[in-house]
């Protein structure tokens, strides 16, 4: 989900910061974000640039930290699946 969120945000012309764990930084290099930040690196989190929005695909403590950094937070992790699910086509 996070990777497709990065993709969509880039398609919309946004500047995209990928928030990942320290050990994921190398594998994240290829997903097309403008910048990568380790959300488990306190100094990196303390020095975040100004953000217009946070798209949180994780929840929990990281989300709480990010909520304090920005006015608009979109949280759509596993607790809230999209409600417009396809209906059965069996008749």
């Amino acid at each position, binding site marked *: 989900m996070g990777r497709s969120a990065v993709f969509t945000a880039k398609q919309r012309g946004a500047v995209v910061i990928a928030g990942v764990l320290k050990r994921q930084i190398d594998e994240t290099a290829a997903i097309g974000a403008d910048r990568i930040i380790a959300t488990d690196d306190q100094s990196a989190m303390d020095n975040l640039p100004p953000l217009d*929005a946070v798209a949180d695909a994780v929840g929990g403590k990281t989300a709480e930290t990010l909520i304090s950094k920005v006015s608009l937070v979109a949280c759509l992790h596993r607790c809230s699946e999209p409600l417009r699910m396809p209906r059965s086509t069996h008749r």
Partner: protein
Amino acid sequence: MKAIVVHQYGGPEVLKFEEYRDPVAGPGEVLIRVAASSVNPIDYKRRAGKTQDFYPIKFPGLIGVDVAGTVLTLGPGVEGFRVGEQVFAMAADAYAELAVVKAANLATVRKGLDVVEAAALPLVTTTGNILISEGTAIKTGQTVLVSGAAGAWDVRQSSPRNSAERS
């Protein structure tokens, strides 16, 4: 066809591999021979009866929303797809040998993408798309931080709570 049929809400034991009526492609729909489906949280929540208010199962019924496979027949009015083509979509009743999908929701499996791996994509990429386009409504030039940007693999690892939610 064979399918994973659900006769009542409950744990994994209510999933029964058995005969089920073949679906038929109506207007604007495509019949697919399923190569693969994938398991999403919505599937086990639905099977357990936790989504009855907004996404019930009509028994005996099927679950599964991600599907990839080969086009078998085109319903009336369908254009842009051909029989034998590999496709994938977010659909309904995907835990089955055959599935009917709205052509409007269908995408071609491009060269270089394995049809089985394609079945892992629809719901999760749609969700990521909605998170940005509707959740943040981010515009050109604005800055957005995507947490969990490396993908679901670590969502699982970073949330022990998730395993308790599965049953």
